[in-house]
C-alpha cells in the first residue's frame, strides 16, 4: 500500500489541520470517495460532517468529545465521526490530539447492527484506517515523519509505502 497524506485546505484552520489520504495514486482521496458514495442518499449528513470538520479546523479544535473514541486498536487513534442517534453515516478518522485529524472513509451504518464487524464495508474502511495509523506510527518511529513544533502539521515525507504489502504480493 502506498499512501500520501494531504492537508485539506478548505477545512483546515488555525485550530486544527484536517488531513486526508490518497491511496495508490488514485484519483480523489478517501474522504472524496466517501462524499461521492453518499451524496445522493445522505447529503444533509455529509453537510453536517463537513461543517463539523471545518469548525474544528477554524474554531474549536478537534476535541476528544467530538469523536467516538476507540474504534481501532488500542492507542492507534482511530475514531469515528459521529454517534448521533439519528445519523446513518459513520466516518472513520485518526485523531492526534486536538490539532490534527486524518479523515478517511466510512459508510452507512445500518440500525440493526451494533458492531462495525457486522458490516463488511464498515469493517474494510475501519481496517484501512488502522493500517494507515500503523504505517504512520512506524514511519514516525523511523524518524521519517514527525509533527511540527506546534503539533499542527505533519512534516517530513508524507508519501509512504508499506513494503511488507509489496513483499506479500510478490510471494
Amino acid at each position: 500500500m502506498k499512501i500520501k497524506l494531504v492537508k485539506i485546505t478548505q477545512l483546515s484552520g488555525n485550530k486544527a489541520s484536517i488531513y486526508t489520504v490518497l491511496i495508490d495514486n488514485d484519483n480523489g482521496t478517501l474522504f472524496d470517495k466517501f462524499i461521492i458514495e453518499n451524496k445522493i442518499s445522505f447529503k444533509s449528513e455529509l453537510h453536517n460532517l463537513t461543517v463539523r470538520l471545518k469548525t474544528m479546523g477554524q474554531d474549536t479544535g478537534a476535541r476528544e468529545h467530538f469523536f467516538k473514541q476507540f474504534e481501532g486498536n488500542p492507542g492507534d487513534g482511530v475514531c469515528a465521526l459521529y454517534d448521533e442517534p439519528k445519523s446513518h453515516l459513520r466516518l472513520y478518522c485518526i485523531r492526534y490530539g486536538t490539532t490534527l485529524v486524518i479523515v478517511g472513509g466510512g459508510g452507512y451504518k445500518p440500525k440493526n447492527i451494533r458492531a462495525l464487524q457486522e458490516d463488511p464495508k464498515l469493517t474494510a474502511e475501519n481496517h484501512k484506517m488502522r493500517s494507515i495509523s500503523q504505517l504512520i506510527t512506524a514511519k514516525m518511529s523511523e524518524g521519517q515523519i514527525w509533527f511540527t513544533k506546534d503539533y499542527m502539521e505533519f512534516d517530513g515525507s508524507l508519501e509512504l509505502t508499506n513494503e511488507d504489502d509489496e513483499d506479500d504480493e510478490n510471494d
Partner: protein
Amino acid sequence: MMKMMKMINTYYSKEIDDLLGDIDPKTEKKIAFRMKLAAKIDNARINMGLSKKQFAEQMSKKPSEITKWLSGTHNFTSDTLYDIQECLHIQLIDIDEGQTEQIIRFLFEAKQKENRQLFAYSDFNFFRRFNLELKNDFMELEPDIEFFRKLCKHEKKQEK
C-alpha cells in the same frame, strides 16, 4: 520498511467545495454554534477541575448524557443550559438587553420620534446614563446621531 518521497502536501477538494457551497449558511452557523457551545461547557468543566464523571454527578446525570452534551451535536433546552450555568459558573444565555441593543433600540425609536417632531428629555439623558462618548462606530450606525449629539451638548450648556 518504507520508501519515502518529498512532496507538496496540501489538497483542494472539488467535492468538498461543492458540498460547502451547497450548505444553507444558517444551517452551517447552527452546526458551528452547537460545537462552540459544547467546547465552552467543556472548557468550564476543565477549569473547575471536574472530571466528566464528577460533572455528571453534580448535574445528576449519567456520564453518557454528558458525553452527548459535549459531542457538539446536542440541542440543549433552556432549563439544561440554566442548570449548566449554575453548576459551572459561566454564562451561556444572556437574557439582559446589552448596551449595543439599547443603543440600536434608542436610535430606532428616536428616528420614529423625529418623524413626528417629538423628543423627550430622557432620550438625551440616555447617552449620559451609559456614559457614552459618541464614537465613530455609532456615527456609522446612524448618521442622524450627530443631531442628537448637538442637542445633548445644548442640554448640558443649559444645565450649566
